């Protein structure tokens, strides 16, 4: 997004603004300062961003939103701290260095009410959207993708060379808020329910909120009948395409300017299916697309040694929801696109040696075999319903209780993959 000229950032369209509710207030009521022609005197004690104090300037009219704001991820940036603290090992002695790092490099993504509803975020240079007119729905490219641009924005809008934009944008002209509604973005007033990460809690939005026929198996599509139960695959496994990954982000403060800066070692596009590292009742999928995040063991070394001593506690290939959904993709073109095709899976050979341990619960060790194998697989007996899915080899290795011993061709399969072929009736 091209930065605005300095004058452009603060030019007020008074004719339009004065017709709006916010236009009934005078400048000084929100921004302070003095009504005087001299610029410096006028701007003395001026409040550039009144909504950085939402309880003072916004709550009188927007009580519910202001009550939720303290718990909103746009305010707390809790997702950053969840990852930083986990990889650090929550060592209290490291917090001064980590706080300094966070404030220099991460806190710039903090968002106020005004940075979504009246101006571009400070992080991208700021500047009024439309002459100070407040927008109930933030303009997508000047607000949402101004920050969420390098991955989500580029994918959604089709800005990655040779990769088509998301069908929801390309065909239906949907903007971010069509799925990510205001209530989701504003968060909750109940601190106990506040998210500590964008993927915590229920999956919202969920594809089947609109595409219910997929989950019910009534759309007549064979692959949905096989995989659309929402247990094995996330929708993006079949319906997203190549997306961006990054490696080796390092942060520091410039010796010449004194400004903080970052440097990433590599940015590239991939499409890899991995095991779901955050499998839960809310996100039960066994397989999901995984994206490499640019963290490295030395990412924060400018601020101190060994700040990521617990690096292996989180994967570097993470659960991804690429925003470039297509109806037809290379992987849903045929069964063989995935079955027996190791290229499409995050296997150990695709992971850097130093990150193998961190990604143990993401790496796919056993590639799903040919479809014929699945179709020929004997279903489990009905009385297996109450057995634990990961306990198959307990009986089927030794033939306990007359259980058929699994053949030698199965020797490389992992214990938790049996039910992938041998379905319950």
């Amino acid at each position, binding site marked *: 997004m091209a930065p605005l000229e300095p*004058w452009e950032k603060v030019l*007020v369209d008074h004719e339009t603004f004065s017709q709006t509710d916010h236009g009934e207030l005078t400048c000084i009521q929100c921004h302070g300062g003095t009504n005087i022609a001299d*610029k410096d005197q006028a701007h003395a004690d001026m409040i550039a961003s009144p909504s950085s104090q939402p309880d003072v300037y916004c709550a009188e009219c927007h009580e519910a939103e202001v009550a939720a704001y303290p718990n909103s991820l746009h305010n707390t940036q809790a997702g950053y701290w969840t990852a930083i603290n986990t990889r650090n090992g929550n060592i209290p002695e490291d917090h001064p260095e980590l706080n300094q790092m966070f404030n220099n*490099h991460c806190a710039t993504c903090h968002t106020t009410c005004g940075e979504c509803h009246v101006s571009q975020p400070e992080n991208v240079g700021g500047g009024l959207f439309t002459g100070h007119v407040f927008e109930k729905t933030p303009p997508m490219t000047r607000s949402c993708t101004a920050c969420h641009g*390098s991955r989500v924005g580029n994918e959604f809008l089709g800005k990655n060379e040779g990769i088509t934009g998301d069908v929801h944008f390309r065909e239906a002209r949907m903007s971010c808020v069509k799925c990510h509604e205001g209530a989701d973005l504003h968060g909750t007033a109940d601190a106990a329910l506040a998210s500590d990460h964008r993927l915590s809690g229920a999956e919202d939005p969920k594809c089947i909120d609109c595409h219910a026929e997929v989950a019910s198996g009534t759309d007549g599509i064979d692959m949905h009948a096989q995989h659309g139960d929402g247990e094995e695959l996330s929708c993006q496994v079949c319906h997203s395409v190549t997306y*961006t990954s990054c490696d080796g982000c390092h942060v520091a403060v410039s010796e010449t300017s004194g400004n903080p800066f970052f440097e990433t070692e590599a940015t590239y596009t991939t499409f890899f299916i991995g095991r779901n590292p955050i499998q839960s009742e809310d996100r039960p999928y066994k397989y999901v697309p995984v994206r490499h995040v640019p963290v490295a063991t030395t990412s924060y070394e400018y601020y101190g040694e060994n700040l990521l001593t617990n690096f292996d506690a989180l994967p570097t290939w993470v659960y991804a929801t690429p925003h470039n959904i297509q109806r037809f993709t290379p992987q849903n073109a045929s069964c063989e696109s995935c079955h027996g095709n190791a290229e499409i899976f995050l296997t150990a050979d695709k992971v850097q040696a130093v990150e193998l341990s961190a990604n143990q619960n993401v790496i796919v060790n056993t590639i799903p075999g040919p479809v014929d194998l699945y179709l020929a697989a004997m279903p489990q007996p009905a009385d297996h319903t109450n057995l634990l899915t990961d306990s198959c080899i307990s009986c089927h290795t030794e033939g306990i209780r007359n259980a058929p011993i699994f053949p030698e061709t199965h020797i490389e399969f992992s214990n938790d993959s049996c039910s992938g072929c041998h379905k319950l009736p």
Partner: protein
Amino acid sequence: MNKRFLTGTVIVLGLLLSGCSTKADALAEAEAATDTAVVEPSPTSVPEAGECLACHTDKQRLIDTAKPEEEGGEAESKGVG
């Protein structure tokens, strides 16, 4: 004695009723005054901002008075953020 008692009682009651009447009138007057104060906006309660708008609606004046912007905090960054 009865006559004196009756006269005294009448005087006391008269004074009491007179007092109540005065208090009720005063309350009514106060409420009326308060109502009037709430309804009528103070002419000096909203700060004027004519000078703010004179500048911030004038593109050329903003161009003329703009200070050069400092380099962004992460202008020396390399790669995708």
